[in-house]
């Protein structure tokens, strides 16, 4: 199947094609899933190099499990977010203290220079605040408010109830709001 024709194919169907030796499916899955996996790992870890390691490992696990994947049972992204979270947890346990200086500058997509800088500054401030949250709160907030997932899917990823997700995101957001309260003016929040 040509690569272009795969844009409409669901992730799990692509995974079956991949397991059957389809190289175009490998390319399509890589292009589609790697940015999500890397982005999520980065937001949980706050470190680009470590996020790349985690993303590569998570994708490697996906490739290895492809042959056993049962279509229609779970979303591929749900499974990946869970693997990323577990890998990040392992890494965070190894380094208890987070060095904020190590947080790299996020990449700036095409936008006005001033607006771009403001976005970068806000994203950096948010990342620093996220890094200070307890791990589960950070994961829930990132999944809900940055990845844009619904509570039932987050509950599945985190293996908790939707009510527990609500509680974690609420507490996480309160802590973020407190951490960022003093920086709103500095970060141009008043302009919005």
């Amino acid at each position, binding site marked *: 199947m040509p690569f272009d024709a795969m844009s409409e194919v669901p992730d799990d169907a692509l995974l079956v094609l*991949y*397991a059957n030796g389809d190289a175009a499916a490998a390319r399509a899955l890589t292009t589609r899933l790697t940015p999500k996996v*890397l982005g999520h790992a*980065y937001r949980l870890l706050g470190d680009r190099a470590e996020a*790349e390691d985690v993303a590569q490992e998570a994708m490697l696990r996906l490739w290895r499990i492809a*042959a056993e994947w049962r279509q229609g049972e779970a979303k591929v992204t749900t499974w990946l977010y869970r693997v990323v979270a577990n890998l990040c947890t392992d890494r965070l346990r190894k380094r208890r203290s987070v060095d904020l200086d190590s947080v790299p500058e996020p990449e700036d997509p095409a936008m006005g220079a001033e607006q771009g800088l403001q976005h970068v500054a*806000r*994203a950096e401030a948010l990342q620093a605040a996220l890094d200070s949250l307890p791990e589960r709160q950070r994961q829930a907030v990132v999944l809900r408010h940055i990845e844009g997932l619904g509570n039932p899917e987050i509950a599945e990823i985190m293996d908790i109830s939707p009510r527990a997700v609500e509680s974690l995101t609420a507490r996480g957001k309160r802590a973020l709001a407190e951490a*960022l309260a003093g920086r709103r003016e500095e970060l141009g*929040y008043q302009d919005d």
Partner: protein
Amino acid sequence: MTDKQQDSDGLDAFFDAARNTAPAPDAAFMARILDDALSVQAEAVAPPSPVTKREGLFSQILRGIGGWPALTGLAAATVAGVWIGVNPPAAVSDQLASLIGTSSATTDATDSDWLLDPLTEYDIAMTGG
């Protein structure tokens, strides 16, 4: 996604900024991921294992007589036998004549005679009683 109307804690601008500045994978990283994908795929989709296909009757016979070399030998022998039957050399005819009790002179006929008149003296004697 976040809802602007519910942004009582003022975090939406930060979440928007985070989404807009998502760390994008560079080409080298994407190539690494794809390399992993293709190498795992190559290992998994290994050359097909020898399938124990049910052997056909011809294959069984062929294997029984020793394969294709034996079959070519057998074919050559068969063709030679047919040829000797159709156009027997003089030595064979003489041997045959002595075996069945006719004189060798009867077999001195030319090949064309033999072909034109397949009824030999022996046959006439036999039919004549």
